[in-house]
Each structure stands twice: as C-alpha cells, then as structure tokens.
C-alpha cells in the first residue's frame, strides 16, 4: 500500500468529522502551545538575566551576610558577626590581585528639591571606586571622593533619572537637596545605566558611606549596627585569580571575626554563582511548566484515544468491507494509527502556530520578553507525534483485530 493512499484514507477519515477532529486536537493544541510559550518565556527571562549580569561590571566578587545569620547575631548582640567598613578596608589593604573594593549600604529615604519630592528613593552609601567597579560613567560633576568619606561631607551624587525628575534639563551640580531631613549639596550626576537585574541604577542616589553611619542610621540600632555594610564588592584584576582571591578573602574575614572559614557568617560569591542561582530558579520554573505541558499532552492523548475508539466502532462496517477486499490487519492498523498521528500532528502544527503567536502576544502585550527556541518547536512536535502513536495504538489494534464476518454484519 502506498504511503499517499494511507494518508489519503486517514485524511478522509478525519475530514468526515471536522469539528469533532478539531475538538479532539484541542488538548494537543493547548499542550504544544503551552510548551512553546513557556519555553519562550523562560528563555526570554534567561536572556535578560545573563545580559544584566554582563552589565553588572566584570570580574566581580560579592561579599554579603549569609542568610539567617543576621537575625541570630542581632538578637545575640554579637556585633563581631556583621560585615563592616573595616572589613572592606582590610580587604583593600592586605589582599593582592584586586583592582578595586567598594562598599554599599542601602537605605530608603524621601528626597526633595524645592516643591518636588520623590518618596522611597534608594540611597546608597558607598566609596569612591563605585563608578569603576559598577561600570557606570559620570555625566557631570564628580563622584564621592576619599576626602568626602573622611570628612563625612554632606554631598550627594544623583542617578540619571532622579536628576531628571528633580531638575529637568538644568544642571543640578551645586544645588542643595534634602535627603530625609539632611540638606546635601549635589556634586555630580551619573550617566544612564538602565535597569540591571532588579535595580534601576538611574534612580539611585549616592552619598558618602560615612554619612549613612552618621546621619541615616536609626539611633536605637546605631549602637548595635555600627559601621555595618550591606555588600562589599571586590573587583579582581585577573579572572584566573578569582578562586585564589575568594580563599584569601574568606581566610581574612574568618581571622577578623574570630571564626573558621567553614563557619564564616558571610558568603563570597562570583557573578557566575549568582547566574547559577538565578538559572536554577528559572530551571525550577521551567520544570514546573514542563509538567503542565506534559499533563495537557497526556489529556490530549486520551482525547485522541477516546475519539479513535468511537471512530473504530462507527466504522466497523467500513473495516469489514476493507478486510473483505483484501486489507490485512496491518493495513487496518496502519490506517487508524495514521489517522491518530495525523490528528495529533495537525494539533501539533496548530499548537506551534498558537505557541509562536502566543509568545509574540506575550512580548507585545504582556511586556514580557520571549525567545521562541527552534528546539522547543521540534520538542513540541515530537511530543505530539509520540502522543498520537502511543494513544492511537490501542484503538488501531482493536480495529485490526476485528473479525471480518462480525465487522460486515455490524450495522
């Protein structure tokens, strides 16, 4: 029997009940579209993450307080277990192979210029190497200097869009603004950087680290928190020295906080570690979506099996006629398997169209970045085919096993 004949007969079988065929395919259509859209969303997210991380600056190490440690230490009043500005200075002084150390401590404050005010602005207390380490250019004026740090100067550097909000196109350098209750002089504006990760760098405002300690630490906590900092960023000169620097930093911090490297209450991570963490989150998300897709494909498959069983019963007499004129059990099985496969593949094709269209719609209307991977289309198609063969086999076999005499007698 020629393949074209098999396809023609199967096609006729389906086209006889177009609406029913479409409804049957719905499960597969949804399953396949789900696979494609979900993979496109997670691929889009992943692409955004990795682009962001490239923008974070290069060869960076992040030293942060370990999760959970902070609370325990705080209740125990063990000041020794906080990451401090002195730790950062010690790292800068005694570890070789690094080209910059910067400290960040974030607070939220209201800022005000004349009648314009902006609430909940991220105020970053930091040190002079920040622009170099974070890879942000200066638009006008200057950044915080070592002198500002030592003298706890009342100066502020604005992010690009914060400057726009407060001053429009006018040059803010030399103007006075209020950060909380404190009156500060604007000494510079940073160039545009955009949103990286979850941080909009253009909305940040920078002040000398020491100013945070002195003016912006809520007094009851000041004694406990002291010159505690949020993050120490270390820029390593040579990428190959990364591991060596990590070890040195860990040993140094352990020594300074009178503990061992194993019990160190801080984590030293590279950007790759952060990428890995974020990727494992997307991977978990993707796994979940894969299950959703798998379930809808199985449901779609059961739908196909159901309708094929109905079809075999409806067409028992046709099967008998075909058997009488010489169709072998293999021919009959092939006919119904092809029909199931045609159903699932047509469903798969419609699902691909729906999936690609849906992904486009998500990025267009949902403001969500999506990347349709060719592999996901292949995967979806292959899954649809497997579903068709797997769930079509039982009905096809049932048809093939029919007794021609019984089948011809069937009304």
């Amino acid at each position: 029997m020629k393949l074209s004949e098999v396809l023609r007969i199967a096609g006729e079988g389906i086209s006889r009940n177009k609406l029913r065929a479409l409804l049957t395919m719905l499960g597969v259509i949804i399953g396949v579209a789900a696979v494609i859209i979900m993979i496109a969303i997670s691929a889009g997210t992943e692409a955004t993450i990795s682009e962001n991380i490239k923008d974070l600056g290069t060869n960076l190490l992040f030293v942060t307080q370990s999760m959970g440690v902070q609370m325990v230490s705080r209740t125990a009043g063990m000041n020794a277990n906080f990451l401090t500005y002195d730790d950062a200075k010690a790292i800068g002084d005694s570890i070789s192979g690094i080209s910059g150390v910067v400290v960040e401590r974030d607070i939220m404050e209201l800022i005000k210029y004349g009648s314009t005010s902006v609430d909940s602005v991220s105020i970053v207390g930091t040190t002079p190497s920040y622009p170099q380490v974070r890879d942000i250019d200066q638009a006008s004026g200057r950044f915080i200097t070592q002198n500002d740090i030592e003298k706890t100067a009342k100066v502020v550097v604005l992010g690009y869009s914060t400057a726009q909000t407060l001053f429009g196109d006018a040059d803010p350098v030399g103007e006075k603004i209020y950060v909380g209750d404190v009156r500060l002089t604007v000494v510079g504006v940073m160039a545009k950087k955009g949103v990286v990760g979850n941080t909009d760098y253009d909305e940040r405002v920078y002040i000398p680290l020491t100013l945070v300690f002195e003016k912006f630490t809520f007094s009851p906590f000041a004694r406990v928190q002291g010159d505690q900092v949020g993050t120490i960023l270390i820029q390593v000169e040579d990428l190959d020295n990364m591991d060596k620097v990590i070890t040195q930093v860990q040993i140094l911090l352990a020594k300074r906080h009178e503990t061992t490297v194993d019990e160190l209450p801080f984590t030293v991570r590279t950007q790759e570690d952060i990428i890995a963490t974020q990727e494992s989150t997307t991977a978990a998300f993707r796994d979940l979506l894969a299950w959703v897709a798998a379930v809808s494909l199985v449901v779609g498959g059961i739908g196909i099996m159901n309708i094929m069983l109905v079809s075999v019963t409806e067409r028992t007499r046709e099967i008998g006629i075909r058997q009488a004129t010489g169709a072998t059990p293999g021919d009959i099985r092939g006919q119904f398997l092809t029909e199931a496969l045609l159903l699932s593949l047509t469903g798969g094709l419609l699902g691909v169209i729906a999936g690609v269209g849906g992904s486009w719609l998500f990025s267009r209307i949902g403001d969500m970045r999506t990347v349709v991977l060719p592999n996901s289309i292949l995967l979806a198609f292959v899954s649809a085919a497997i579903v068709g063969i797997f769930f079509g086999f039982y009905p096809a076999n049932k048809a093939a096993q029919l007794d021609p005499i019984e089948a011809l007698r069937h009304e």
Partner: protein
Amino acid sequence: MSDPTLIEIDQVTKIYLMGHVQVTALDGISMRVITGEFLAIMGPSGSGKSTLMNILGCLDRPTSGTYLLAGEDVSRMSREQLARIRNQKIGFIFQSYNLLTQASALQNVLMPIVYRRNGHISTKDRIEMAHNALSSVGLVDREQHKPTEMSGGQQQRVAIARALVNSPALILADEPTGNLDSHSGLEIMEILQKLHSQGRTVVMITHDARNAEFAERVIHLQDGKISEDNHLATAPAHATTGGLT
C-alpha cells in the same frame, strides 16, 4: 494450469461455541468447483450456507478439513495471508452491497486495487482498471456518484464492478438480489450470467429458486450437509460456455 479444479473442499466442518453449547454449522462437507462453473448454493436458514460462504470467501477458517483454492491450501492460513488471498482471488458481492457511502463509485471500485501487493500500478492505470470494471456493468456515467445518489440496482452493479476489478478467480455472491425489486434483481442476475459466459467462476448463495435457475449447478444444504447436488443440463435463459464436465 491444466487442472480445471478451482475449489476443492474435503471433509470441512465448522463448529461454533455458543456459550457452552457446540453448534455444528458445517458437518463434513466435500465438493469441487471447476473453473468457469456457475454454482448456486441453496438451503433454509440455519443450513450452514452462510458459514460455507464465509469459508469459501476466506473470511473464516474451517474447524477441520481442507480447502484448496486454485491448488493452494487456504484452510490453515493466517489472517494476513487470507487477506491477500481475498484480495487476489476473490470478488465479493453482498446482499446489502457494502459500499463506502461517503466515497464515489469510482473510489469504491478502486478499493481492492489499493490493497494489492503484487507490483506497482500507476494511478492512471488504476483508474483505467476501475473505469473498465464500471463500464462492464454499464455505469460509466455514474463514476463520480456516491452510493446514496444511486438506486439499489446501481449500487449492486458498483459492488460487482468492485468484485471484478482485480480479475479474481472466484466471484462470490451472497444473496445478490435480496435487497432489490424483481426488475433490478433480474438485471443483476443477467450480469452474473454474462460474467459466467465470459468464463468466470461464480458461486452464489441464494434462497430464491428463480435465481438458482440461472446457475448450471445447484447444491442444497441441509443441517450442515449437502443434501442435493444437481447439474442442470442447460441453463434455461442463456447458453453457457463454461467448462461443464
């Protein structure tokens, strides 16, 4: 093929199991049919004629005994092999026509060619074959009609064309006029008569004595056995050219 015997069945029995009761539908039947013969099988219902028809048509296998069709023992063949035999050697004509209602007359006639195994036939040649078969039953102008658009007699003629298209050794007709009025029935019988006169072997099951008169030999079945086997000297309506011994 010097041996003119087309069908040779020997001590064929068929026993059905109905629950725990054994029903003997055929009880040791032996007979020969010669190439070119026009045989009518008659008998009351329950006599086993349908069972015999199913076995002769390779739709079923005997419980015991042998069936040689054109020298080949088909009584022990697999379902697969039987399907091929049906395709190559047997053309069926059923009481209820058994056409695919959604397909055109031409497509119905093409069906046995679709399941052919021996050798590739081009689409053009296939249509030519189906066309010839339809024209031999006088339905050339109805090729694209569906069975639902045809009279019973026309539908049965399409079924005959389908039975002929693979040039089978044996035409098996099961009550071919059972669903037709007497006029259409006569037409069908005349076609069968014509096929016989062209040298084809026709075996027909019927309960209608008038139909049996077209045959040159009539076998009567009773309780799964052959009760009568009469060779009619001449077919009443037409002269025969078949190889009568």
